[in-house]
């Protein structure tokens, strides 16, 4: 089995596995200053909705959105119990399977998360307050875009479904911090990119990750997706390439896209 991590050695990432998660500034504080640039859209951004509090309840939450949802109950600090399809409550499944991508800063030893939903830290990492005077100090800012491998590490930490932590066997990486090499711990067989069983959405992600890691592609998720605008408008600017065929037909109007049903073993969908 060919693993991806070898390709990452060239990126200058922090390679040592972190024993502890770092202290970080929570998103609420970020939004005090970024109330007018990020604030107006963030509450409706999909990253912010991976876990949603239920109105009028301090302990009840909803996981997912639209067609695929599960109910959650807070059972302690950084812990959720998840309701199974048969109505029973499962106290460990959320921590074992969901926490890595639906919450922020999960301690892989205790499986306790720090913030629910995806906080600024999940992409921008540990932020120095001095970034207000020098935006190069914040990862993924206009003046510090990060390389293709770094961006791919960050996005893949959630969007590359099917990898596994080498240290813990969890479906999410061990103490990954943006700026680190995700694949130092997260094993992903990139041959899966051509797996015909993959749905179009997952295949699109796998192929892009493979192209960055193995073929030195400079096209990353951020080339086409604007996270804060919650938009993929930029992808219309991309020249036609084989990657387009993941979703579009080879001929005919581009607005016609292939229908597909999301499927994930990790997420138990469908």
């Amino acid at each position, binding site marked *: 089995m060919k693993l991806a991590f070898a390709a990452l050695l060239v990126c200058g990432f922090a390679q040592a596995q972190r024993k502890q998660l770092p202290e970080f*500034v*929570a*998103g*609420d*504080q*970020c*939004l*005090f*200053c*970024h*109330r*007018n*640039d*990020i*604030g*107006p*859209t*963030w*509450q409706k951004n999909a990253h*912010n909705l991976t*876990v*949603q*509090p239920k*109105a009028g309840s*301090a302990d009840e939450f909803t996981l997912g959105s639209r067609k695929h949802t599960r109910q959650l109950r*807070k059972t*302690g*600090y*950084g812990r959720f119990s998840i309701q199974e399809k048969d109505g029973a409550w499962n106290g460990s499944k959320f921590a074992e399977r969901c926490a890595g991508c639906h919450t922020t800063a999960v301690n892989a030893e205790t499986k*306790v*998360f*720090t*913030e*629910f*939903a995806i*906080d*600024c830290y999940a992409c921008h990492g540990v932020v120095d*307050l*001095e970034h*207000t*005077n*020098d*935006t190069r100090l914040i990862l993924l800012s206009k*003046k510090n875009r990060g390389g293709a491998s770094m961006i791919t590490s960050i996005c893949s930490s959630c969007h590359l479904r099917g990898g596994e932590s080498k240290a813990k066997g969890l479906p999410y990486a061990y103490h990954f911090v943006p700026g680190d090499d995700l694949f130092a711990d997260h094993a992903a067989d990139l041959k899966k990119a051509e797996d015909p069983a993959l749905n179009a959405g997952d295949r699109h992600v796998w192929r892009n990750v493979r192209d960055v890691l193995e073929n030195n592609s400079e096209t990353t998720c951020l080339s086409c997706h604007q996270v*804060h*605008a919650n938009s993929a408008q930029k992808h219309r600017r991309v020249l036609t390439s084989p990657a387009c065929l993941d979703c579009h037909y080879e001929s005919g109007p581009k607005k016609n896209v292939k229908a597909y049903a999301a499927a994930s073993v990790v997420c138990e969908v469908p």
Partner: protein
Amino acid sequence: MWIRKGERDRKKNVISPMPTQVISNEEFIPRPQTEKQKHVEHLITEMSEVRAGKLGMDRRAFMATSMGMATCLLASNKVWGNSFEVTEAEAWEPAASEEKWPKGEFFVMDVQGHFTDGYALNFRNMEFVKNMGFQLSNDKEAYSFRNFVKEMYFDSETDVVVISGVPGREIQRDEKGAMLEGRQRRGGVLPSWLMAYARDEINRLAGSARAFSQGNLAPNHYWDKVNNRPDRKAILEQMDREISQYKIASWKWYCHTDPGGSGGGFQIDDENSAWFYDESRKRGIKTFSVHKGYSYQSRTLGHLANPKDVEKAALNNPDLNFVIYHSAIQHGPNEPDWEKANQYDPATGDFAWHSVLMDIRKRNPKINNVYCEIGSFFGPLVISNPVIAMHGMGKNIKHYGSDHVVWGTDCLWWGSPQWLVDAFKRFQISDEMCDKFGYKKITKEDKAKIFGLNAARIYGLDLKKKRTPLGADALDKLKMAYLESGPQPSLEAAGWVRAGD
């Protein structure tokens, strides 16, 4: 097609110290300029051209004077109804304004003044501020303590400022358990230790009480993660420090922030707050300044900024004062659609979440310990939608009384607060709206209370005591040792509007 707002104004020859439309920051599609906004803009241009021409002045120079502001207010009145007491004479002669609105007429106590610990926050790049025509700089010096003193005390009529907290908590000890002090405690953009230091500096230079400071500590700032509850020992340690050492005059709470990594926010009527009240009460601090509204200052906890929890807290603690900041208005000045986003109902004048705060008083007419603070409430409303401003101020006074409305500005985020002082001096509710909605005209007595007498009462300020002004050399005498030097930020301005507007 989108074009830069500045480019569009240059093309259309628009020069206005007041905003004439809402601008996009690329996060949302520019909203078309409304008919009323177009009308105001047209009138401002037309009226200022006539006046500047007759006075033999360049129009840009004219707009920078009190006559320019008066012209804008006249134009606003023509379109939105009479929300400003302004005469034609003021748009022709600066002396007319000076005579009618003499400086120093009111005692002004601003309960919401901010600066930063050397960080530029980008607020001054907001389009509605830029459109005021002040051309404020946005580097870290613009947000500094030194500039705070200049803009609050020298460039405005403000007599006393309450230095108000922003979300953040201090780190109490280092990794070896040794107590940290001063800058080592960090604490975010404006920590409690720095507010106390700045207050002492101002009062030392003035030789009298010209500043108070708040404390940032809140019930969720130190968290026992093993037992999933507040770390009461750490909270009490910080409480003692902030009260005894920092000598704070009020707490400043943000229910919808979580600097302690507790995994949630809090409500001012929950059991952790109740415990905090008891401990604070024992130590003599009985004023709780609570940020409510501006809900997108939170990632996931925005609903906790709804003021619904004020009711129980106020009823259960009649000996405490609850100053509700921003009068609980839900959204901010750059909201793409202010009326829609705040669910403004023109039939009633209600809007989110101000109406929740008003309903509390309607249900509980005996509540006497809740105050409506108007920082970033009156200002943005009065320049962008004076009708909502009239509703907001009209309801605050109608339901809570003019003795329970408190002056705050949120400056120096918006530069010197003088433009807000000037605007509130002239602000009035139209006859039509008084008749239709049962509001009362705002009297000079009302304005005196709102401008400062109410805050003085809350903070126990003896108005009979002499308050000496800061000397002309005060800025040079400020001890600035805590200010760090650093690289200057990019001052790139952004903002897009539709090319057709």
